[in-house]
């Protein structure tokens, strides 16, 4: 019962996680910011969730900025692909 009231006034955890995701990518509206703040102040799980997805988000952003280690492929495979490409360019 208590939970239900909280959700009517504030947010469910399901909703809160959606706002947490949105917050990673864009600015929340004033109303959303207040809702999330209130929710996080009475919920112990969602703040933990938020901390962890921030880590994941950061790793993903960093990972994109960096060049992957160059893989080395067997020469025959590279040559086969090169031949296929050159063939398709001729057409």
């Amino acid at each position, binding site marked *: 019962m208590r939970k239900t009231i909280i959700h009517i006034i504030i947010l469910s955890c399901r909703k809160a996680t959606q706002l947490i995701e949105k917050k990673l990518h864009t600015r929340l509206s004033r109303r959303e910011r207040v809702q999330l703040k209130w929710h996080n102040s009475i919920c112990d799980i969602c703040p933990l969730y938020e901390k962890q997805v921030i880590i*994941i988000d950061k790793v993903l952003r960093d990972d994109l900025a960096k060049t992957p280690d*160059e893989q080395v*492929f067997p020469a025959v495979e*590279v040559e086969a692909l090169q031949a296929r490409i050159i063939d398709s360019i001729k057409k």
Partner: protein
Amino acid sequence: MDSLHKDASLTIKQWVELHTEKLLSWAIYKVSDRELAEDLVQDTFLAAVQSYHKFKGDSEPRTWLLSILNNKIIDHYRKQARNVTISFKQDKDPFFDEHGEWREEAEPQPWDVGSPHLLDDNEFIKILRKCMNKLPMPWLSAMQLKYLQQKDGKEICQDLGITQSNFWQILCRAKLQVRACVEKNWFIK
């Protein structure tokens, strides 16, 4: 025009010799699928022939080819993510109960992020990528698009033909699943 075209295919043939391996390695990293990666590399060179007249000598050929390849990768994910939806019944939601509360078994556990090098840890990134690849293809694609493109959500939603709130929901679902998978494979050993 014809001689220009000839010129282009000659140059690009040299580029094929020089850059195929690097492009392939990049494409595999981004799409995690060898066959698809090869097709994307081939498409990249074909597009390079078509738009050779746009190539300006002031950038490196490899940089130019990589930017074409990146667009091909984005196109691929865009096709996969178009009209993406979330489909499950609320009572089957693995993370939240019918009130929208965390299900006990799905509650995040504290992570021991003791190492300050976690973000540089290759093993962690590997697990993260493995977890992402377990996502349903349209969700993975939506997530990749968000992180590959330096675009805001609004533009991506227009490309995909979905509403913004739908888009955040999908990214959130994808994140919930990836987070749980990372926790299981990295932190709980």
